[in-house]
């Protein structure tokens, strides 16, 4: 039999449904890959039995002639930010190490209901704060890609969904969940040559996802191609009364609507994204993308997003402010770590617990957030940032009067080496310069692999759509994917 781990979501779903192979065979093949990939450190916890149990259930259903679900027989990786009943949910932090939820997040439950099984919980940046997966309490994830210069440098898989991106690229799972607050699905997808989409804010329920910045957090799928992401997004999305910002809208049949024909579509190219000193390979891949969409029938229009340069600084006020509030819940009382120094009172216990339980980047962001929300500074920082956010949102609304979808690079560079940016938080933050504006405006945005740079590393192209228009984003993504012909093949070294 062909190697089942070379198959994606659609091929597994269809193969299991047709009886070409069993769901158990698929689960066993991926379980074996997970077990053999310890060097990548993509998983915090592997759950081979959960994958097998779900596969057996799918095979039993098929034997009885029952419907198998959108994800029937597909084993997936679950970012360790989603609460999973009976399985440690750590957010890659020490403070939640050992936390075993008594409940299941809405998104993961929907995936299990759709027939998917869980291969394990994937590593990430601690509390999803980071762009390189280097802030995890459980160690760095290593990008399965290597530079072609023979240097053998270990590269970052991107972040925060770095375990998800590395695992999909290395064929440890056909697809994985991600979450995106300021690029955490798209940037790691670009760094590892896979596809990932952040839907419109509110499409996927946030219930049961460890909160970072609630007005920005949004779950989405990461997989090898656009169709696989489409199928998985359909299974993840949908109204949930338990999330007050959940969109009360039906989930469209995005897979049936997939079309790479761009005739009559206008693709916007934002002038402000073409920055001085832009990486030549990134600029070239963007030009390739423009040519590909033109060939697919699209009309290319230049657009303006005048407040682009202010998106990142606004994000680094808003996200830490929300994080400082959300992370106040980790107090050593209700769950997670408790550090009670000898003779300490309640207040000292809080401070000691949080000192021991949070990593440096998390502390940095909580302190920034506390400062910008504190009396006397609130208006100068937080209110100003939220006004700028309104302007950024207006920019997109105006641009979408002139175009249907926006094309831009996903990141300013290909994957960088582990350790290269850890001493300079600001240069790390700048990685998300192209990703953050769509997050601030709550818009659907996707990264699709566009090819390799001169170092042999994948580059991603980003598509940003109107609110609720995931279909337009997916279709333009499909057009790029067909023209790019990116294979995702990499040499196995682990």
């Amino acid at each position, binding site marked *: 039999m062909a190697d089942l781990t070379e198959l994606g979501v659609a091929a597994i779903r269809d193969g299991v449904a047709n009886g070409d192979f069993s769901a158990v065979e698929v689960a066993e093949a991926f379980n074996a890959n997970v077990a053999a990939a310890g060097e990548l450190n993509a998983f915090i916890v592997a759950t081979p039995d959960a994958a097998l149990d779900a596969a057996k259930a799918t095979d039993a259903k098929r034997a009885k002639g029952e419907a198998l679900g959108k994800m029937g027989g597909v084993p997936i990786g679950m970012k360790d930010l989603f609460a999973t009943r009976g399985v440690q949910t750590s957010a890659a932090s020490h403070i939640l190490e050992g936390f075993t939820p008594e409940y299941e997040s809405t998104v993961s439950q929907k995936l299990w209901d759709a027939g998917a099984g869980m291969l394990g919980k994937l590593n990430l940046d601690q509390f999803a704060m980071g762009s390189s997966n280097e802030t995890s309490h459980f160690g760095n994830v290593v990008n399965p890609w290597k530079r072609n210069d023979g240097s053998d440098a270990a590269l970052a898989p991107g972040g925060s969904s770095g375990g998800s991106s590395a695992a999909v690229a290395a064929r440890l799972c056909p697809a994985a969940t991600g979450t995106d607050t300021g690029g955490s699905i798209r940037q790691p997808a670009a760094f590892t040559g896979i596809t990932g989409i952040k839907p419109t*804010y509110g499409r996927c329920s946030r219930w049961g996802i460890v909160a970072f910045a609630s007005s920005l957090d949004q779950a989405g799928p990461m997989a090898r191609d656009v169709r696989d992401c489409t199928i998985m997004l359909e299974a993840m999305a949908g109204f949930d009364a338990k999330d007050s910002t959940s969109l009360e809208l039906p989930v469209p049949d995005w897979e049936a609507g997939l079309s790479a024909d761009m005739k009559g579509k206008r693709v916007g190219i934002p002038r402000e994204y073409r920055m001085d000193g832009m990486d030549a390979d990134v600029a070239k891949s963007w030009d390739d993308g423009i040519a590909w969409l033109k060939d697919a029938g699209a009309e290319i229009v230049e657009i303006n997003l005048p407040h682009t340069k202010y998106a990142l600084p606004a994000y680094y006020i808003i996200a830490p402010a929300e994080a400082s509030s959300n992370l106040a819940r980790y107090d050593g009382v*209700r769950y997670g770590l408790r550090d009670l120094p000898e003779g300490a009172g309640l207040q000292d*216990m809080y401070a000691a617990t949080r000192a021991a339980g949070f990593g440096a980047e998390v502390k940095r962001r909580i302190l920034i957030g506390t400062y910008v929300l*504190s009396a006397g500074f609130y208006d*100068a920082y937080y209110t100003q940032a939220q006004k700028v956010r309104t*302007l950024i949102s207006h920019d997109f609304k105006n641009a979408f009067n002139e175009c249907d979808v926006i094309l831009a690079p996903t990141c300013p560079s290909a994957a960088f080496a582990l350790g290269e940016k850890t001493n300079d938080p600001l240069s790390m933050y700048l990685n998300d310069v192209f990703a953050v504006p769509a997050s601030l405006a709550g818009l659907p945005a996707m990264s699709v692999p566009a090819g390799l740079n001169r170092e042999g590393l994948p580059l991603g192209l980003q598509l940003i759509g109107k609110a609720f228009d995931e279909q337009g984003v997916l279709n333009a993504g499909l057009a790029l994917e067909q023209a790019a012909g990116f294979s995702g093949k990499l040499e196995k070294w682990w």
Partner: protein
Amino acid sequence: MSVDTETVAKIAALARIKLGEDELAGMVPELNAILGWVEQLGEVDVTGIEPMTAVIENTLRLRADAINADPLTGGDRRDDILANAPVAEHGFFGVPKVIE
């Protein structure tokens, strides 16, 4: 605006994070670099602009006015809620004595 050691110590106390002296000294320049960089937002003319309250316009819903409308998030889940507590006694969370 920039922060000094005393201010960072005050913020850390507000955030209930104990910082050692080295950690505190390291944090001051890092926070100043970030705060100096976000200061560019002051250049933006925001006259007449409302701060954003929701990225996607949505109305807040009210749940059904019923006890345990959703059993998962309703009452009667004491043991589940206490299951992950570092210290739980007699059906309550346990904390150090707070009465002086």
